[in-house]
């Protein structure tokens, strides 16, 4: 298992290098001189020289990339143009909020999605199934930020149950988690339903019925166990999408976090911050996928033996 994890981690290194190269190149692909994009308007010649020396902007591009990558790996993400703070400090401040939101949303969509999927599979083609699947279609096609705004309108403005925005206390987490989570719930419910139906048609289920086991035991303890493997795979692949969803939702709810920091930095042309946020999000997606691979191997004995 350890060897498997290690090998998967090694496989991520080229991906990381490629992504970091693209993110590094942003500064050189945008119109204008990189130095101008790294300092405030009206900076002195001395400040320009300092920036040039620091990023090695007078040296060839591959060397610049290595300098930048070296700095990034040591935790030096540069200095924000607006605010003049260390970017690493900004990221460190935003990251816990995003992780909290993403984690809660993932948990919410897994639990609710699997539950809905089970119900839909058990009541296949009857009204609960049709109602759930109809809700799933609508849920998966609604833009996340609009759902967030509607939830604000109903639960924060009209009913006054939760705060409209911000990140103070757990109540401020409810609506954002719902917004991010509902999109994921739709997908998890759909996959769970199909996986349950497919697993329910296997021979061992027939045998369990013949042995006289109660139906609910068969469904919950035997069929579900098989059905969960594809669900975990999908969930792991979706970790990135859930993080992506939190980008929009953070903006809607004016919550601090990587997403809202990124969008603000994009509008302000604060490129060091843009690069850092994009890199963090990309790394989070990669780690999420890795986690999914490992979980899948833990759950599925076939994958485990294939690895040995």
């Amino acid at each position, binding site marked *: 298992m350890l060897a498997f994890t290690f090998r998967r981690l090694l496989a991520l290194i080229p991906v990381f290098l490629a*992504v970091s190269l693209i*993110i590094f190149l942003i500064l050189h692909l*945008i119109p204008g001189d990189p130095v101008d994009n790294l300092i405030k308007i009206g900076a002195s010649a001395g400040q320009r020289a300092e920036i040039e020396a620091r990023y090695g902007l007078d040296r060839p591009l591959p060397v610049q990339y290595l300098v930048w990558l070296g700095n990034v790996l040591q935790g030096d993400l540069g200095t924000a143009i607006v605010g003049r703070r260390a970017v690493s400090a900004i990221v460190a401040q935003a990251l816990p909020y995003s992780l909290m939101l993403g984690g809660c949303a993932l948990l919410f969509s897994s639990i609710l999605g699997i539950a809905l999927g089970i119900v839909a599979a058990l009541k296949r083609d009857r009204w609960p199934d049709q109602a759930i699947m109809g809700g799933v279609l609508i849920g998966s096609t609604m*833009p996340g*930020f609009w759902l967030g705004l*509607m939830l604000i309108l109903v639960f924060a403005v009209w009913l006054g149950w939760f705060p409209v925005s911000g990140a103070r206390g757990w109540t401020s987490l409810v609506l954002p988690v719902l917004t991010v989570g509902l999109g994921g719930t739709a997908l998890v419910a759909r996959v769970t339903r199909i996986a349950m139906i497919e697993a329910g048609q296997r021979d061992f289920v027939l045998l369990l019925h013949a042995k006289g086991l109660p139906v609910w035991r068969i469904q919950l303890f035997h069929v579900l166990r098989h059905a969960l493997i594809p669900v975990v795979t999908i969930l792991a692949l979706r970790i990135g999408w859930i993080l992506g969803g939190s980008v929009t939702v953070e903006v809607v709810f004016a919550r601090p976090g990587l997403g809202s920091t990124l969008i603000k930095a994009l*509008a302000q042309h604060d*490129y060091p911050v843009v690069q850092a946020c*994009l890199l963090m999000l990309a790394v989070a*997606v990669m780690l999420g996928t890795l986690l999914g691979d490992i979980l899948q191997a833990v759950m599925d004995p076939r994958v485990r033996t294939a690895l040995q």
Partner: protein
Amino acid sequence: MNMAAALAPAATALRSPKGAIAGGWLLLVILGAILAPWLTPYGYDVQNLPGAFQPPNAQHWLGTDEFGRDLLTRLLYGARTSLSVSAVAIGISVTAGLILGAVAGYFGGRLDRAVTVVVDLTWSFPEILVALILVAIVGPGVTGTLAAIGVAYLAQFTRLARAQIMAIRAETYVEAARSLGASDAFILFRHLIPNTLSPVLVAAMLATGDAIILEATLGFFGLGAQPPIPSWGAMMSSGTAQLFRAPGIILFPGLCVAATVVAINLYGDALVRALDIRSRARTH
């Protein structure tokens, strides 16, 4: 393939009730977008501050926004931006993906491996992340949005086209064409690509739905079409500040996005079924 045969499944898809409702809504939105200047007496950027925040009434069917601009007018012009940007972006994506995937799948070898590596790399990241990287490079605005959506969905179409081409490149008619002395380019563009078109076009239609959401999201962030050009996303973005006073500013464009995307999905499903029936009828 002649025009009538190409359009037959599109008509068949309208026969189911879901397909008919979905197709009807799409037609309505598309016509509304095209005919916007003739459908409404108002301009999308004409401000009328004394007439701001009107509730729906006979003059302004959906009311007015914070600058007194007619909401229905902005919704119609917004449909122009949102639909055309999404459709053009997906068009770029499909064309590039089809050529890239077809060439990679047909020739194989080192080229195929290179394309696969790049495609797998973008495939593993959420579209919104790819789109934001592109917007960071190209800059906000219509061009940035086109590039962002175009590249975000490129991997999907390249993958699909490559898989389709690989499945049919060993067919006997390809061999026959080659033995008759047809060039690679001729085989690709005359025989192989036309045979992969219907699944790719259905995928393109479904992706247009996702692209509308992505376009609205970028517009909501203020990274899409810049004011005063209305887009559904930008309308909702300016509406957030007025959420308490005039929820309609957000409600209507959001409903338009949701309804259009649901309609595209339902119609796409009906189309898939219609195409299936056709292919089955042909093989039997």
